[in-house]
């Protein structure tokens, strides 16, 4: 499993680039792809339908009530924010660290990030009792409120992520514009508009490189902010289980884990359904991502230990009740499964070389992602039931999401996947020029080749 050799020979490079382009141009879905898309659309539309119900009847269609007033919408929101951090991780951190194998992964992670952050924004609107008043956020925004900080950073991060997806995509769009044959008019028109008149000129190329560097530097603090602020939504209250100074780092480290898991899952799926991608998403990538995931999970485990062990040592009043519920009480089965499947098992499996092959990796990645979703459930929901709860119906004390709530949540997840799916359908999901550059192909060669493609 060695790193691919650098290519210095120009002819060889051109040859390789041609091969790349043939391999990586977006193409029509087969039956599996179409079924998958249809399924997602159905789930998404069911979610939309249920949301119209919610608009009509209010949040009473959900399982939330006073006391447990934040439910799976919020935990799903936290999940989306978490997974969106992968964009900054793979694209920016690895880019700045000059990690040589990151190029083919950067666009996958960035599109996951964009889809997630868009739906993070949407799901928070879904959670609002009065979604039409979102405008109040701008009319009457209070800078003292962590929610306003969150709105600001989510918007900022969304913009940055879209830009970070878009800049490196420009040559790709142009290439699609010039080389895809037999596509409908609207698609051609879309490529035309989106490619911004890309002419493969060195100036344009230079601007793109510059923009990527700026974005990579900037997106890291913003990504930290978005998740830290999201964690402060909880940490700024007095509630046991949320009253923790560790929350920022804990959320961020958890986010990196789920993000890496998301990318691995994406890689595995792409490799499976586009056999030609095997050349680009090699076993090496899986191996490295596996190691990275172990590292990130260990860091996450460190923060989890701090999060649970310090209060558990003290076992202070209400916090004790919360921890008992998690460790041995009502939430214990979920809690321990999440810790085991979402943290311990992936570490163990991925420590072995055999574990870092695509199929086990895919399983582990899915476990990590699902575990992460439920982890957020465990962070958000149990904490809300430890004040004297009296005078309310028994049903209010235990939150269980309703069918419609699930439908909306799943709809949002389907929506995010749909964005990714459509992206894969219409745009090259692996950045040709970045991969080529990584292999040591000089910029001049790349221009030359691209221009050649242009002439074709």
């Amino acid at each position, binding site marked *: 499993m060695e790193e691919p050799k650098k290519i210095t020979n120009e002819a060889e490079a051109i040859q390789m680039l041609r091969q790349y382009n043939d391999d990586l141009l977006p193409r029509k879905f087969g039956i599996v792809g179409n079924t998958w898309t249809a399924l997602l659309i159905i789930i998404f539309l069911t979610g939309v339908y249920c949301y119209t119900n919610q608009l009509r009847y209010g949040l009473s269609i959900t399982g939330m009530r006073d006391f447990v007033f934040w439910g799976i919408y919020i935990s799903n929101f936290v999940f989306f924010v978490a997974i969106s951090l992968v964009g900054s991780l793979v694209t920016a951190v690895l880019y700045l660290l000059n990690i040589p194998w990151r190029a083919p992964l950067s666009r996958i992670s960035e599109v996951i990030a964009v889809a997630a952050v868009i739906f993070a924004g949407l799901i928070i609107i879904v959670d609002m009792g009065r979604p039409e008043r979102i405008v109040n956020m701008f009319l009457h925004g209070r800078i003292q409120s*962590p929610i306003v900080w969150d709105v600001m950073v989510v918007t900022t991060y969304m913009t940055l992520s879209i830009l970070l997806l878009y800049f490196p995509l420009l040559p790709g769009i142009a290439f699609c514009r010039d080389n895809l044959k037999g596509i409908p008019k609207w698609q051609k028109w879309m490529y035309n508009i989106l490619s911004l008149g890309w002419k493969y000129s060195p100036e344009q190329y230079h601007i793109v490189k510059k923009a990527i560097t700026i974005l990579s530097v900037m997106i890291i603090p913003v990504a*930290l902010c978005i998740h*830290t602020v999201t964690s*402060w939504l909880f*940490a*700024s*209250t*007095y509630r046991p289980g949320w*009253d*923790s*100074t*560790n*929350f*920022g*780092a*804990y959320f961020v480290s958890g986010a990196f884990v789920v993000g890496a898991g998301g990318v691995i899952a994406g890689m595995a799926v792409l490799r499976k359904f586009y056999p030609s991608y095997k050349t680009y998403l090699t076993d090496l990538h899986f191996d490295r991502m596996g190691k990275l995931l172990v590292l990130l999970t260990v860091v996450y485990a*460190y*923060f989890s230990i*701090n*999060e649970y062990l*310090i*209060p558990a*040592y*003290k076992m*202070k009043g209400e916090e004790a009740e919360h921890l008992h519920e998690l460790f041995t009480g009502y939430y214990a089965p979920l809690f321990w499964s999440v810790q085991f499947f979402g943290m311990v098992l992936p570490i163990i499996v991925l420590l072995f070389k055999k574990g870092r092959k695509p199929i086990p990796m895919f399983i582990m990645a899915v476990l990590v992602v699902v575990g992460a979703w439920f982890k957020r459930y465990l962070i958000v929901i149990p904490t809300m039931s430890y004040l004297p709860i009296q005078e309310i119906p028994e049903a209010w004390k235990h939150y269980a999401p309703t069918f419609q709530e699930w439908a909306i949540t799943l709809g949002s997840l389907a929506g995010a996947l749909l964005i990714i799916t459509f992206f894969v359908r219409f745009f090259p999901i692996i950045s040709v020029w970045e991969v080529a550059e990584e292999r040591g192909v000089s910029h001049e060669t790349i221009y030359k080749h691209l221009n050649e493609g242009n002439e074709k």
Partner: protein
Amino acid sequence: MKNETTAVDSVLMNKYEAMHDELLRPIQKTGLAGKIWIGFLFCVFFAGVFAFYTQETKSKYETISLNNYTMWGIYISNFVFFVALSLVGALMSAVLKLTNFEWYRPLSRIAEVIAVAAIMFAGVGIIVAMGHPERLYFLLTHGRLQSPIIWDIVVIITYFVATSLFLFIPLIPGISQLSNHLKDKPKWQMWMYKKLSLSWRGTPEQWKIVKRCITILAILIIPLGISIHTVTAWLFASTLRAEWNSTNFGAYFIAGAFLLGVAAVIVGTFFFRKYYRFEKYLTDSYFDKMGKMLVFLSGVYFYFNINEYLVPAFKMDSMHSQYLLDEFTGKDAILFWLVFLFGIFVPAILPLFKSMLKPWPLTVIAILVVIAAWFKRYIIVIPGLSHPYLPIQNVPHSWTHYVPSLIECMVVAGIFAAALLFITLFSKFFPIISVWEVAEGDGVSLEKINLLSKKA
């Protein structure tokens, strides 16, 4: 092609030969300045010993200004400082090594010797703080596994052994060289070299074992370093005191420790370079890299500081508000903000300018960081203690304001002197730069390295 490499090799070989000779110089003889320095350190150390003797024989009321409220004073804060300092070994030699930052090589031994000295005198520092130092062995006879102090003792001892090995094992080839080449040295010294060199002959088996030891240690020392400082943080975080009631403490302490460690290595590198005239080996480029590291680590440390202070400050409950307000605007404010300025802002911002990455300015910054780091621990440990939950009444005025006594300061100074003495004497007996590691980093093969040591 082959000729070329041999040419390169011979250049390198010459370089390392010269390096050998130069590295032996400080061991061969000590100049006047060196003698004065060592003499001075001895004086301070003995003054510290005398102060400790006074403290133990005379009433503690007269000798130290601790009291029933501020029961942990500068002894403990100094202990935390030393533990933090000791983490540099794990950072420089292990983290950088494992993440393939090759430039760590000439600095690793400096870092390692600082780490050993620090962890050794951290242990001494905690004995000094005990009421009954002669009962230290009770920890073995009556140890309670539930107590964080026992955890701390266990990890400190383990870390001490691990760091010592990490210092010693790469030193073995060097020692064998010393025993081969040093002249005019007292018998005992030569005998010591002989014994310590463990009959090193540079056989491939020996090399293999050394390499394996180093790899295992590099992996082992990271979790050890993390746990030693996390457990030290838990000494505080496991109490019910408001000012320490923070799940963030582990990561916060570690981030601070890494920053301090890098600063300490900068200072050490600077002085060794200056007084042993190692400019050729410890070039400006190292300062450049270390300066960038300072920026990065200050950023990380800043992140944890934000979480540590802003999350409770947003809530401002009565338990936290007393000491927080004292620190932000009250009686501890000047110290607090100075520490923030020199401990975080200065190292985060100044090295961003190229001119600040030169040895002199960077060393000044690093010294500021070290001093600020010492006072940072003072701020973490002491001010909060004077704001217990129940009011302090009917006590002598001095009990409400802790000011370290002369004896305490002398003991702490003695500990510092002892640590510096250890480092200085080490450099007088052993080479402070590991030649074979540097050579290996340049791609020189092990046989050549063996050859080198024999030839010289």
